[in-house]
């Protein structure tokens, strides 16, 4: 199975994630979509690392996982804080700041 397939797949996933961010309004789901994009990145990294035959890509992917985890944690924390503040969990409702 040639590497191209993996990369194309990953870009498809990347696009899907991006689209998700654009159409979903629940912050939780948006976080999920961000996960999708990061994972697409990971897939690409790993595929490439296989292609060039060095493992830097895999290390990178590992770091990315950590980062992703951190973003999730903070993101979820924010969501909880917003919920606590009795604000709606809908990014479209949060538009005090504009103009």
């Amino acid at each position, binding site marked *: 199975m040639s590497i191209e397939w993996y990369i194309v797949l990953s870009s498809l996933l*990347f696009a899907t994630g991006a689209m998700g*961010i654009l159409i979903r309004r629940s912050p939780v789901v948006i976080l999920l979509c961000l996960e999708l*994009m990061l994972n697409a990145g990971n897939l690409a990294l790993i595929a490439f690392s296989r292609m060039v035959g060095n493992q830097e890509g895999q*290390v990178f992917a590992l770091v990315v996982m950590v980062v992703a985890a951190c973003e999730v944690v*903070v*993101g979820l924390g*924010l969501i909880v*804080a917003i919920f606590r503040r009795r604000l709606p969990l809908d990014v479209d409702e949060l538009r005090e*700041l504009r*103009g």
Partner: protein
Amino acid sequence: MNFVAPEIDYAGLSPVIALTVSLCVVLLSAVFRPTERWAPGLTLIALATTAGLLIWRWGDSQDLVTGALRIDELAISISLVVLLMAAACVLLSLREPATEQVGSGEYHALLLGSVLGMVLLAQAQNLITFFVGLETLSIPLYILCAANLRRERSLESGLKYLIVGSLGSATLLYGMAFLYGGSGSTDFAGIAAGIGDAGLVGDPLVLVGIALVAVGLAFKTSIAPFHQWTPDVYEGAPTPITAFMAVATKAAAFAVFVRFFDLALAPQAEEWQPALAVLAAVTIVIGNIGALGQRSLKRLLGYSGVAQAGYILGGLVVASEAGVNALVFYLVGYAFMNLAAFAVVVARERETVFGDDIESVRGLGHERPLLAWPLTISMLGLAGLPATVGFIGKLYLIEALVEGDYTWLAVFIAVGTMISLAYYLRVVATMWMRPESVAAEHGGAPAAPAIAGASPEADPIDRHAGRRLYLAGPAALAAAATVFFGVIPQPLVEFAERAGSSLF
């Protein structure tokens, strides 16, 4: 299992180490109520130490830890800017409601974390360190933006920043993946070489990779059209954080921007230069016209920040030593001017019920000359009027641009500056002159700040904030520096030249 610990030059790494250690210390201080009060002091000490160590390393430039980092004048100068802003942020944060709410210890720990990220970023010359540094920079900021938990705007800005920011990092990451794929290496030098060896100069894979990375960085440096988070987040975040973010983030991001594009992507310069030039022009225009008629000072400074980013990007576009010099010089000047402005905004925010609305500085010239002067100087400086560092900075940039055959971009800078006068001088006028007629107000109805008085979000009013040394002091010093380096710029010029020459 043949594990050989990498040889580490601890001297070179000392600033990073110092930051890490102090971060933990500050965090521990948060554990016990009594010690929590020390957090600001500890943070300042930490920052001072780091600065000291950085200055100590000034002049030697070498790779650290098997080329993951590189400490050189560029990194050091940028890190110093970051530290300066961080220290200022600590001072401005005293008695800031946000600090009480998240706890002083955590607040400052997060701040230090962000600083650590920036310092790493400024030194990074490997994709992985680059990415980690960027995230270490961002994630604490997401939290700090939301730190004023009682205020919806603060939370909103936090969430917005998080979402768009992560989107930006994802894009960046994907771009890095492509570049890694193209070059088979994660080191900047390796990338430059690898792309050449594989004969991929001008290859779509690589170029799209560049595009993705550019977007990611453009986002961090709030280049249009990736700037939209800037005004919102600046307005929503606690003002000290805004002050910190406005300069430090830009500085660090630009540092790595320069390092990455002028080193790793140098072979592709012909392709990316025009693209970035156009982005810069767009940014200048959008930032400046967006700021017109803004009522919120923070928002106004946000847009102005966008415009300024456009100017600075010019220094990168020409991909020349002169360009980098100009960029560093401008960043330093920008730090002084913004600091002066934000310090005053913080003071007025606490003194008046108008929050950061422009009304809060009405008539400041009479009642608080000591606050009015710094803000005036900073506005004039940002507007690039002579005898301020802003003028010299623009001069420097334009010189670099003309030298690099980007005169048209220089003209854009000039045009942008003209537009910018309209809003910078409006602030000055509000401070010193009689109110403009309603016709002249483009801001619409007179001030009705959403957080005025009665609302449960209201922050306590401190009638004497303007006289507090930790607010007036930084403002005055920054303003003084703005003028000083506007009249005697040579030291700063040499400083910038060292930074530039260290890269090429």
